[in-house]
């Protein structure tokens, strides 16, 4: 563990993510207003300009628009901060779903031999369709809501996790300690979850971080295309989509959510690289021999 945190990539990536998590949780206390509020008098303000905003009760209050406002007069700063919540939830939940399903499928495919063929051909089938198209199709089939979006993004990720777990299981099941467990009369389920799974954790964590980054990007793309979450939920994707029309006149509408998106995905990937170097001994050896 100490070795993991001694790695600078891990330190930088993790602290950036902790900061984003803080922004997401503390969003209501950071000088934001309800992200759905708008005021016709404060349309298209540039960053830092002061203006007024109408609350739900109908009062008009003074407000400084740190990141400007959009063509409805909504506060972009508030919308971006609240959007952080959506992005992080989608990213983490997608990774959790994809890992959970992928681990089960991978263990079964690797350990139960007759399941290997059918399961892996199914996964090949899913991999043959572009991830974004599956996601769009699934969201279009179901009603657009947070769980739908999460599943729609997670499903195309499952084959990758399954393949990884299966390949690890295929090598681990030949290890003498697994054979020793067999000869000690340990039932197959206990061997799968007690002996094999714990030894796949390191590469899975690394894979998980990449899924987080990927899921955040896909969610933004879906929202940008207007097939993601309902438009009343502020996400980086739909803020950018709404700002796109006025991009030449008011670039800040796209700029701020874009910067957050890029920084988040970068942080996640830097963390993933750092974890790979420290947790995955095989890869670490390849990077710096002996």
């Amino acid at each position, binding site marked *: 563990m100490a070795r993991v945190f001694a790695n600078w990539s891990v330190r930088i990536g993790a602290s950036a993510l902790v900061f984003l998590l803080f922004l997401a949780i503390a969003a209501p206390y950071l000088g934001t207003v309800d992200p759905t509020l708008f005021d016709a008098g404060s349309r298209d303000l540039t960053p830092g300009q002061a203006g007024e905003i109408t609350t739900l009760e109908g009062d008009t209050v003074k407000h400084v628009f740190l990141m400007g406002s959009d063509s409805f007069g909504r506060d972009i700063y508030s919308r971006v901060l609240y959007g952080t919540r959506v992005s992080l939830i989608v990213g983490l939940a997608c990774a959790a779903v994809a890992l959970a399903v992928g681990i089960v499928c991978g263990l079964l495919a690797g350990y139960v031999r007759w399941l290997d063929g059918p399961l892996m051909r199914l996964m090949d089938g899913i991999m043959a369709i572009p991830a974004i198209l599956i996601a769009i199709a699934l969201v279009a089939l179901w009603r657009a809501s947070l769980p739908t979006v999460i599943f729609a993004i997670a499903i195309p990720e499952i084959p990758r996790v399954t393949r990884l777990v299966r390949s690890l299981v295929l090598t681990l099941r030949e290890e*003498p300690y697994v*054979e*020793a*467990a067999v*000869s*000690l*009369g*340990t*039932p197959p389920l206990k061997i799968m979850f007690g002996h094999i799974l714990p030894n796949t954790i390191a590469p899975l964590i690394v894979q998980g971080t990449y899924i987080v980054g990927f899921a955040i990007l896909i969610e933004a793309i879906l929202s940008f295309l207007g097939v993601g979450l309902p438009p009343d939920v502020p996400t980086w994707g739909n803020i950018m989509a709404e700002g796109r029309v006025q991009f030449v006149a008011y670039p800040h509408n796209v700029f701020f959510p874009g910067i957050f998106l890029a920084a988040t995905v970068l942080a996640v990937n830097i963390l993933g690289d750092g974890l790979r170097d420290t947790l995955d001994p095989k890869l670490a050896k390849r990077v710096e*021999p002996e």
Partner: protein
Amino acid sequence: MSALEVRGLTVALPRGADRAQAVSDVSFQVEKREIVCLVGESGSGKSVIAQAIMGLLPAALPVSRGQVFLEGEELTAAAPARLRELRGARMAMIFQEPMTALNPVMTCGAQLDELLLFHGRTSPAERRKKILQLLGEVALGDPERMLASYPHQLSGGQRQRIMIAMALALEPALLIADEPTTALDVTTQSQILKLIIEVQKRHGMAVLFITHDFGVVAEIADRVAVLRLGELVESGRREEVLSHPRHDYTRMLIASVPSLKPAQRATLPAGPAALETKKLSKTYTERRWLGPRREVHAARDVTLAVRRGETLGIVGESGSGKSTLARCLARLIEPSEGDIFLGGTNIARSKPAALRPLRSRIQIVFQDPYRSLNPRRTVAQALIEGPVNYGLSREQALERAGRLLALVGLEGSSLERYPHQFSGGQRQRICIARALAVEPEVLIADEAVSALDVSVQAQVLRLLEDIRRKLELAMVFITHDLRVAAQVCDTVAVMHRGRVVEYGSAAEVLVHPRDEYTQALLAAAPGRDFGFGSAAQEAARPGSGA
């Protein structure tokens, strides 16, 4: 002038290692026309010395003091370009694993050709002549086919011959051989040793031969230098060091080499067989979409029996089917034909669910102590797994685990530690304890001591012997090492290409072998003319050990 002189060589280890120096203040010489054996157990720094001489040390291990002279020229101060010239031309090296030392995507011929080209032989005809001459010299038949082959198409012995041919190509003054026969079968080993002696004589080379095996030392050395934890403890002429070792460590090492003479046991146990096989076969079939099906008979018609309190040795070279047999006996794989009787029950074709209640009666200890324990489980978790599977409570199982640790000679505090905190020998003890935890009747040891240093090997053998006696186990001992077999086995079965070619009491099979193959195996055992292992034999005799 000596061919090689090492003077006060000291190589530093990075901070945080188990000692400050990999090699400290080592001095020795290798004269022309002389073979010097550098002997030591793992971690003694013998390979580091070879790398230091070749100038191949990794940056983390710098030479901090001392000098190396090759034919009077100081190597430790030489420029990298000069070292590159000398490597190959004046000093050459052969390695333990010829498969990894050869480039897998180049034919052997191309690799030999490249070597000659880089060192200035420009005419293709001249190079070809030289290559064919070299292959003749290392006695490789069918040179055309050898040259066109990729390394994986050749056997281990053939690959090592190619390596030797490459080393000889430029007529070096010094040949460094780093455990060149350790990965080879005993019959191949004896051929390669003969070859090395032969080419050394013919070219008048100096050879620095690194090994852990005193049998090999007895076979090949003119002089011996013994290393222990980076320090040279003793050196001298072969006969002197082997017969009259002065240092305690050397004495201990030589005493640990098991004798080839079978240990006598007063009475052999009688009674019904604990484990018996009848016409057991295992065939692997490789199905292909196109082309014929390929069948490999890993084991054929094996009929054996072992009683409680008896040790059955299964001896053979790699690929003889002995490990396949072990895995069939433990029912980790299903045999293709034949029967296995475990105390009267035929388990050859039992389904996994029916097998589980029987598994506690037959246990197996594997070769590689580093892979036999789950790295993420503590010793306690490993030891209680079996008993808990068979219905013991955690507390009872833990109590038994504590007793077993004491039995195999480990401290009780080991229970909460993880496998990586133990040495190879200690891990093998843990594996033995784990196998014993379910109170088996039959214990299969599949090359259980082959990966261990000779001194540790002697301890583990003693432990196994002790346990067999105390618990009245039937033991199946699988090994490639005839010395080990001679010390622990009551009956011996010799396997060759999947078949048992000779089966009988150890005294008969190992002293008066009838089968041609057994005779060849015995003849190839290194150092057979030398009376090793008087101490080990005493220790193995009932009543005097433990």
